């Protein structure tokens, strides 16, 4: 089976094209008939399609799985430092993962002039840009010096504003995030993810607990990881890189499974038992942990 892959990859000028730019939602109504029209024509072909599929399943299969990726969600307390650093890493990686990010705190808290005077904002309604402008006006020197403005500047280029995990409705379409140009939004329009990575045990607890509260309505499995990162800029950088490493490992395994099971599964599904992606997660995490011994990790399989 593996011998098919290189051949497909060498002569594939098409695979670069397939993920078509999504149509802007405004033009949607006018296109409304198009897909249904398209649906009629293949309708007649499907009967014969079975035969065809058994003979040449590989070509198109690879093209499709090439564009398929795991969808990620990063979570920290305020959706500002650690989760956003990881968001940046995942969204700007060569593989460019679909990624969304949240905070689990009750409010967005940023360091203020002293430890007892934090700057507090509410989730979902305050944009990073607003925070940036407000703090710049308050004490540009202080906030530039402690890196807050720098961080907010990065964040406002990534997405609109901090979102609270507990307010997230899984499965709620996130088309507007694509239209706003959020980085990493491409692929998350369905409002679901495959992997959630938190940056602190407290957040992991909050996420697992909140998913239980949400009632697992979607019946969709989600891997919830924690990668313990201290809340400062330096550690966020280190942690972000480590999270990208974890994401790459997970994605590789998932893609491999999709490919092998795609073609092999079609011909003989009860073939040699292979470790599926979900099953291999503890192993992947253990390997990753050995490489990053300073970022204690945790995992569970939860439900959206």
């Amino acid at each position, binding site marked *: 089976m593996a011998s098919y892959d290189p051949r497909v990859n060498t002569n594939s000028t098409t695979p670069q094209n*397939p993920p078509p730019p999504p149509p802007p939602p405004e033009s*949607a*109504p006018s296109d*409304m008939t*198009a*897909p*249904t029209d398209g*649906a009629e024509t*293949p309708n007649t*072909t*499907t009967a014969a*399609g*079975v035969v065809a599929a058994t003979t040449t*399943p590989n*070509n*198109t299969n690879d093209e*499709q799985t090439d564009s398929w990726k795991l969808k990620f969600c990063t979570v920290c307390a305020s959706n500002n430092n650690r989760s956003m650093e990881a968001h940046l890493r995942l969204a700007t990686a060569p593989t460019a993962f679909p990624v969304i990010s949240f905070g689990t705190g009750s409010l967005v808290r940023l360091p203020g*002039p*002293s430890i007892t005077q934090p700057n507090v904002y509410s989730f979902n309604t305050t944009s990073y840009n607003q925070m940036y402008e407000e703090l710049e006006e308050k004490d540009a020197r202080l906030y530039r*010096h402690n890196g807050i403005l720098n961080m907010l500047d990065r964040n406002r280029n990534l997405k609109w504003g901090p979102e609270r995990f507990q307010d997230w*409705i899984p*499965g*709620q*379409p996130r088309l507007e995030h694509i239209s706003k140009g959020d980085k990493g939004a491409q692929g998350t329009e*369905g409002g*679901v993810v495959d992997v959630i990575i938190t940056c602190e045990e407290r957040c*992991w607890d909050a996420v*697992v607990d909140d998913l*239980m*509260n949400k*009632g*697992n*309505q*979607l*019946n*969709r*499995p989600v891997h919830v990881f924690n990668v313990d990162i*201290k809340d400062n800029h330096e550690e966020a950088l280190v942690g972000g890189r480590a999270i990208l490493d974890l994401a790459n490992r997970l994605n590789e395994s998932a893609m491999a499974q999709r490919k092998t*099971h*795609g073609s092999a599964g*079609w011909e003989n*599904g009860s073939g040699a*038992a*292979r470790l*599926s992606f*979900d*099953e291999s997660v*503890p*192993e992947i*995490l*253990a*390997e990753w942990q050995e490489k990053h011994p*300073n970022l*204690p*990790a*945790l995992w*569970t*399989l*939860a*439900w959206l």
Partner: protein
Amino acid sequence: MAQSPEQVVDQVAQLDAARKLVLGDAALYPQIVNGILPIVGANARLELRRWGAEFLAETFASPILATSQKQQLAPTVLNSIQETLLLPETDNAVLASLIQTCASMYPLIFRHTVNHPGDNKTWEMMSAVKQEILRKMDSFPCSVKICCIKFLQRVVQVQTPGLIADPRRPDQNETSLAVVPRNHALLSLPQLEAESSGLLDRLLDVLQEETCNPLIVNATLNCLAPLIRTRQSIANKIIQSIMDFFPTKHVHPPFTPTVRVGVKSMERTARALLFNVMKKNPGHPLMGKMQHYIERLMQSRLETAEDASRKRGPPAEPTDGLDQTKRARLDAVAPPPLKIPPLPAGPTSYDQLFTLTQDIGLSSFDVKQLPPDIVVKIAIPLLSQVNPALLTQAVDAIRNRYETITKEQNHKRQQLHQAATAAAADDDDDYEPDYEPEDIGDNGPGEAAAIAQEEAELEPDLVSLGPFVLPQPPPLSEEEASEVGRSAVSRVFGMIDAVDAASSSSSTQTKPQQLGFARLAGSTFDREAWVVLLTRLATRAPAGLEIDDKVKAGSAGVKRHSTISDSIRETLYRYILEDFRARLKIGITWLNEEWYNDRVRMKAANQERTDADDEPTVTLYYDTWVLRLLDGFLPYLDSKDIKILVRFLSEIPEVTIAIIQRVAGLARDPERITLTVQALMYLVMFRPPAREMCLNAMEDVYQTYEESRPAAGKVLAKWRPQALPAPAEQASTNDSSNPTQPAPSTEAQAST
């Protein structure tokens, strides 16, 4: 009509566009779902089926599509799912998505059936799909199986009575068994409830399995919360089975990193689930038990300490040297230095030594007046609040005082000594500085009184104790001594067994380390070393002593000492016989030591012999014990034990006639004749000093036991052909040899 890859790519792109549409406007779902079903149905190509299954899962899970609309779509889609499942579908991604869809759809179909008792077709279809999933669940790969678990959970949730929020508006109530009318045509309440109870057991079974898969366990634990929260009737059962679950019990070494990840995740998930239950229901009757379980769970962890050390420590330098808010406050405000009042002049009491406060009222307060329980109540919270820095200061202060006092006292004491020794210069040798008063007591009443007075002044003298001399233990009686000796010996035997057990696993690794001739006895602390130690303890330890004693005190001494070594011998003997096949090597070592010891003692006795009148009397242990050992295991030898017998006979240091007789005696048993002949033959061939002896024995055997003739005859023909009678004589010799037959047996019995 085959589809070209380009066509499929186009189709997927179109489908993606359609999906974007419905995501933007949920009202379009019915149209799109009905439109795509034929394209992505059972017989479509893999990528289309994957797309379709994923889309259907998304559709029926979508929070933006109204339940009523989903209910309308459900029967049609269910039909398509059933077709795909029965194909049978084999792609994991498609299967997982389809089962997710079924899980979302089950309550919808159930509600539809409740409202449409006449539509038995849909319900039958759903039941068929359910049975199909349940049947195949255990054979599905893990990634599909977890979706089946979720489906199970959904079925259980639907088929268990839930809360009726408002009996007047049945449509507003959550879908559960409680909304089914008693007389429903299709849905039989007892049957559904029984089924769900069975499925719940199946769901919870995962927590009881011998070895557990963390993925499956976590998937199960994480979907139980809604059941516990919304289904009162089964909540306690679920909680109970969680509380019986301890991940560490379900894993077995080696604890690879993967296993650790799994165990930790199960622990944390179980904990998270119970926390969730406790938070939702603070007055839960099982609250205390749940808390207890969580504590136990955390205690039973494989790696409690490991994680703490993993977290990055604080950076060596402040991350931002200029930023005051970020600089770590390493040294908090130092407490004000403690005021240490000087000790009052003169002799110090304990009270004064430990009093740091200058408050008269405090220092004169008698704590004994307080009942102990109150003291405890006060002291514990106080201790927890003590400033460590202050405590250190106080302890240091007391220590300083104490050292000063000790110094002073030692100084005084030395002076006292000098005075005393000067006064009691004529005291006897047993002068003991520790017992001054007694020593000095007889030096005249005046001095004694002065000293006594000084002693009284130095009351806290107890603080500085002199060297402590342990009193001599009472002398051991002879029996006690030998008892202790025996117990020591039995512990050495214990060591052999312990090393046995330990080395049996690692024997392959230790083998290359064998030292051969270069080894020293007992240098490696392995089993061998203990064996050597034991045998030498038995043979050599009392060797010199016996002779000394004999010279000094006569035979009584010999007897006393020999009891200890004899008891070791006895124990060794029994130890070897317990498993003589494996332990014969020990026996050989031992007998060699005995033999050597006999030689040494004989030599020593010869040298000792000053007057030529007496023969040196040396008890020869070798002869006794070799026969005992041989007699001990000979009865148990079977015809296949030739190697053991030959090894024993060839490795013991000396073969005697008695030994050979016993070996020959084996021939009485027709089954063991070959054993005898082979053993003797071996000795004839490879032990020249014993050759004659063995040939005699062989001849004897040949004469006595007819069955031995074929084998023994061959040997004799080679080594002593003259012993073989002419063929004609054979019959007569056979008869004449019969009376000699019982002879060896009586001898053997007598010698044991």
